């Protein structure tokens, strides 16, 4: 029988090597994380992870289920604050400013770092209201006309405008799954963030909707930095420039996507990519 240990290894770093392999930090980073630890009560979910995310790049976080990639992603806009019993230590800097500093207001942080969730969750309001809510509460539009412009621009950028422009007053929950997810993306970009975090955005969608959103990510890269958590290695290979591989709460390897998928340097990365476990 074939066992993973029996197959001859080719990667330079063995499975026991615990230091992160590859270029963790980049020049002119948008986000810089140093020695981040996350505890859910007693469980040590993220162990001493350091990572840098460059401007206008798409970085994919991959790894088997339960390895902590979603947890790490949620740290970047402090969504873990909503989970009782969750403790985050370490330093996460957005444009040089520590987001876990004492007394930092999370409201503007979350306007700068937007999030798209796994299951599309449009507000139970009209399509227009869904997209307009963010700009309205942050005061990004000074009159109705400006608000409508922002809504149209966001829907166009999300690739949804042509499909819904005649149905703006219809409820957002009446759209198909793929359209709802694009609506959530439009909602996120309506507040003009700098970073967009995507937590497995296509896992609940069919291949065609997935393809549309992947195309969208490429267009969005022009204006935003994107960090995407994905279960699908093919998707990571398609959309990202850098990839980070997580395993049991640790960051194993980081590098250019092409290099990670063709020539991984850590054995665990190679095991995951070649499908020895997943």
């Amino acid at each position: 029988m074939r066992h993973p240990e029996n197959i001859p290894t080719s990667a330079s770093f063995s499975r026991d090597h615990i230091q992160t392999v590859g270029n963790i930090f980049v020049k002119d980073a948008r986000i810089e994380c140093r020695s981040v630890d996350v505890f859910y009560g007693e469980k040590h979910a993220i162990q001493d992870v350091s990572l840098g995310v460059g401007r206008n790049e798409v970085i994919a976080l991959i790894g088997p289920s339960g390895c902590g990639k979603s947890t790490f992603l949620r740290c970047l806009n402090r969504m873990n604050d909503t989970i009782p019993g969750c403790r985050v230590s370490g330093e996460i800097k957005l444009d040089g400013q520590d987001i876990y500093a004492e007394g930092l207001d999370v409201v503007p942080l979350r306007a700068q770092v937007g999030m798209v969730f796994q299951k599309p969750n449009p507000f139970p309001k009209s399509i227009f209201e869904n997209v307009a809510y963010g700009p309205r509460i942050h005061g990004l539009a000074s009159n109705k006309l400006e608000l409508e412009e922002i809504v149209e621009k966001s829907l166009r950028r999300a690739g949804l405008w042509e499909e819904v422009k005649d149905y703006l007053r219809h409820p957002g929950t009446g759209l198909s799954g793929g359209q709802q997810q694009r609506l959530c993306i439009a909602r996120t970009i309506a507040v003009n963030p700098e970073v967009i975090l995507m937590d497995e955005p296509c896992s609940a969608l069919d291949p065609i909707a997935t393809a549309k959103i992947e195309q969208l990510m490429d267009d969005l890269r022009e204006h935003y930095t994107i960090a995407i958590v994905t279960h699908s290695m093919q998707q990571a290979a398609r959309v990202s420039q850098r990839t980070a591989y997580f395993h049991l709460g640790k960051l194993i390897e980081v590098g250019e996507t092409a290099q990670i998928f063709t020539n991984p340097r850590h054995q665990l990365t190679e095991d995951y990519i070649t499908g020895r476990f997943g």
Partner: protein
Amino acid sequence: MSNRTEENKSSNQGIRTHEIVKAGLHRRRAAEIRFKAYGFICIVAGLGFLMVLFGNIIAHAWSAFEQTYVALDVTFDESALDPEGKHDAASLASADYPALLKRSLAAMFPEVKDRLEKRSLNALLSSGAPYELRRILENDPALLGKTERIWLPVDDDVDMLVKGQIDRDIGEGDRRMKDYQIAWIDKLIAAGRVEKRFNKQFFTSGDSREPEMAGIWGALMGSLFTLMVTGALSLPIGIASAIYLEEFAPRNRWTDIIEVNINNLAAVPSIVFGLLGLAVFINFFGLPRSSPLVGGLVLTLMTLPVIIIAARSALKSVPPSIREAALGIGASQMQTVFHHVLPLAMPGMLTGAIIGMARALGESAPLLMIGMVAFIVDVPGSLTDPSTVLPVQIYLWADSSERGFVERTSAAILVLLAFLITMNGLAVYLRKHYERRW
């Protein structure tokens, strides 16, 4: 070779399972049918009891909505009403109307000479008949000096006789009405002077010792004012507390203690709140006894735990994905709660609130403690006037000995039930209205 015996073994086991299942199927189906039958019987029994209860109440209450009137030829004799010829409202108000009625009755039954019998004859009319006469004259002063056929309300005993509630067959000593009184009534009926009309008095006047003059308007107003106070206090406080406890309060030992206490308070017997109201609101703060204000305060204390619990569970039922979506685009905690969570939780909150209010409407024990059991004749005009509430009124009437109050008790119960059904109907309508919007 070995593969084939394995195959046979597994297919043999397949056949065995199927046979076993088939054998037991009959018993399983029978058990299901029995269970469904039990459920059906329970529902039918429940509905049956409900119908018996309602049927009983309606059967008794039906006759209360009618009041017997008798037509008398009344001469508005100027010499009796306005001997000084002043023709002003004051003298008309204080004139001797009973005398007019006595004269009219004497004219119709000239054979009645004995003083005792004359008293019995005059007792056929309601004690409110003179006031009715005065009202008619005040509305139409031109009647002065004329003779008119006036319909006047009869005494409750006559009313009961006409409605068939008094048994004519039992001996005179056991009856409220004497034989000759019954004979007079029969004569009036034969002359076509007796008819039953809609009992407006029931809906427009307050309580009275005389059943034919008694109405529920006083109790209705009292209930309305009390509910107004209860609603105005318990709804905002209850909903705000629930929002705070559910969305903003930290989860620690203190909030746990508060939650346990609120759950316990919801189960406290309501009379305890009445004692609290008596000790604190009336004795300590000196608020007016038996007023809707104090009644409302006591009922607020009673309804608050119920509303808090219902509102909290409505808030808990809002899916967390909505909260995350709102927080994710940078809404503050307040904005998330008030713009997104609260509208979605509104149907549940409204239902809980109205059920709490309906419970408050039907409470009598705590209100007895704060004095609403007194005999109140005047209709309350403000929050501090002494008043009574519908359930307490029903209790007082049920306790009365007059025959006329039996039907009025049932009629008052019907009014209370109508009130409750309306409130519940409002709850259902509001829920549907808010649910449809999303």
